[in-house]
């Protein structure tokens, strides 16, 4: 039985979602739609997926009680350590699952888009693992600002194709990937977040749900209770938040906080705070909340972080925002940098720039001393060192 936060038969979460795709893609998307749940729920898939998550990806990722951060903010703060999984971010939970699905569907050529490069690396990694052909589309601007990840993809044998249109970032890389997919319908589009046409958002959410599945038993083990009071995650497309929220969605006692990138300030004109600036619209095949001008032209977003630099959010998040199930907050570039420096100094953990946004809302919250918070530490900051050092010296 479908729950409130699962898509209906047309792929809608409330009014958001669907599959707004050219007819050329219909058979591809239909093939996935017809098979994904059955594959995911099959014993064979679960065995392979769980096996790889454990031995290859390094799951469960720890749930770490951050003593010094907790002292500082006078609350009980746990960090879900997605930074420790193979390739350094939650993205691989999804790519491991999708590559197995692709395999079951007999696909051998994989395409993907990437912003921060983490999804590109995670895709190139599983393609190497499975001996598949891999092409990754990446905005020309992101190729520059996330150079280490470009090097990793190259070394993993992936072809990295620069997206040169629009803002030359994630949105444009996604356009190019979809365009290539239309032209090469035999390829499998291994999408990197809970975005795109149905069933991609649901498929990715189900694969990232392992995060909250673990949080539940880890919280129980540590505190005797499955539920924290609050879960905080950053939102680019929304996949790490979807994963961290998933098994708590129906449980309204658990507060969910989604943090968007405010760039130079929500109203500065240089921002990616979709929920604050967007309106209902269609992007990359789904109806969601979207930053657009009065004529529906998609606005070029801005964030210091290549993984949050996206003018939309996944349809589930649009619904979480619209239905007020999740609280949407945001953090500027500077707030994210400060939060990254703080986490590094007090806990010895260098977060990804994306992830840093989730930590940046702590000073803005009214915390209770007994409040139990889980922050999804979605990725590590190795890829962002150049940016950090630039601002550290400044």
């Amino acid at each position, binding site marked *: 039985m479908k729950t409130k936060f699962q898509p209906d038969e047309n792929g809608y979460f409330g009014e958001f979602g669907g599959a707004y795709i050219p007819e050329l893609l219909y058979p591809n998307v239909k093939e996935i739609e017809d098979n994904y749940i059955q594959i995911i729920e099959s014993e064979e898939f679960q065995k392979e997926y769980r096996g790889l998550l454990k031995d290859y990806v390094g799951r469960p990722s720890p749930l770490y009680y951050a003593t010094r951060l907790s002292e500082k903010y006078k609350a009980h703060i746990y960090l879900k350590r997605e930074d420790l999984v193979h390739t350094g971010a939650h993205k691989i939970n999804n790519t491991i699952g999708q590559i197995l699905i692709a395999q079951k569907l007999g696909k051998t050529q994989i395409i993907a888009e990437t912003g921060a490069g983490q999804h590109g690396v995670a895709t190139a990694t599983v393609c190497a693992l499975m001996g598949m052909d891999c092409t990754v589309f990446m905005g020309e601007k992101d190729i520059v600002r996330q150079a280490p990840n470009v090097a990793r993809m190259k070394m993993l044998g992936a072809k990295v194709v620069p997206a040169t249109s629009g803002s030359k970032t994630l949105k444009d890389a996604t356009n190019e990937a979809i365009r290539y997919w239309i032209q*090469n319908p035999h390829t499998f589009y291994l999408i990197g977040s809970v975005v795109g046409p149905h069933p991609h958002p649901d498929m990715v959410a189900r694969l990232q749900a392992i995060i909250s599945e673990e949080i539940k038993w880890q919280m129980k083990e540590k505190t005797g209770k499955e539920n924290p009071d609050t879960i905080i995650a950053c939102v680019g497309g929304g996949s790490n938040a979807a994963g961290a929220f998933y098994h708590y969605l129906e449980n309204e006692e658990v507060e969910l906080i989604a943090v968007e990138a405010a760039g130079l300030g929500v109203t500065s004109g240089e921002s990616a705070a979709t929920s604050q600036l967007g309106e209902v619209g269609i992007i990359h095949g789904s109806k969601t909340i979207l930053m657009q001008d009065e004529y529906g032209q998609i606005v070029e977003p801005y964030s210091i972080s290549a993984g949050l630099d996206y003018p939309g959010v996944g349809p589930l998040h649009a619904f979480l925002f619209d239905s007020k199930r999740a609280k949407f907050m945001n953090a500027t570039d500077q707030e994210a940098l400060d939060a990254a420096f703080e986490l590094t100094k007090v806990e010895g953990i260098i977060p990804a720039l994306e992830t840093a946004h989730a930590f940046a809302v702590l000073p803005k919250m009214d915390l209770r001393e007994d409040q139990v918070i889980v922050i999804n530490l979605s990725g590590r900051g190795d890829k962002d060192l150049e940016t950090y050092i630039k601002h550290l010296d400044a």
Partner: protein
Amino acid sequence: MNTIAKHLEQKGRNNLSIYFTSGFPELNDTQKVIEELGEAGVDFIEVGLPYSDPLADGPTIQDSSTIALRNGINLDIVFDQLMSIKDSNKTPLVVMGYLNQVLKYGEKRFCEKVVACGIDTVILPDLPMVEYENHYKALFDSYGINNVFLITPNTSEERIRKIDEYTQSFIYMVASSAITGAKGEISDQQIAYFERIKAMNLKSKLIIGFGISNHSTFSKACEYANGAIIGSAFIKNLQNNGIQGIASFVKGIRNA
């Protein structure tokens, strides 16, 4: 009866349709391009509504859209331009855009404007059939607007029959599984697909698009359908040879 369907009905075979991007190469070229195309004797024209993220278009059309948007084009201006030639222009028009433009402009407001410009056919490549059935069919019908569906070599027979049912203008037959962009020739595989569709004896007229770029591909397409649409090849010609090059381009397509 739908304007385009009527024309196709009258003319029968060898219909030539040209796609162009409004507001390109210059903001106010829209009317001139339509006029030239009309004079050159094309059968109908697809007016592209430039979009920031035209997923279903190839690089040529995408680039022309970017330029048009930089020129300052927007839906209000396009509709004003089309309005201004409503009486002078005799060539049937189709508007082609993306669903988000319609959504944001206001679905009804969009339909009113289309109709006001004397147009009754739209192509929205990212409008899927299920959304059409659940929502847009009733809306469009109430304005007398017909939606053009695309079919591809991979569209199932069942789905094609349904599309045939919904179609009052024409079915846009995608020549191959590829987004628009000039190719070279038409392959045996494509011909097999054309023949398969032809053998289905659909009630709707068929227009072939995607990869039609010259006299040879146009003529070949016309053997299997009521005509063909040229987009990228025309945009490239417009870019290189300007509005004064339109007549000879169209002539070149019609006669080798």
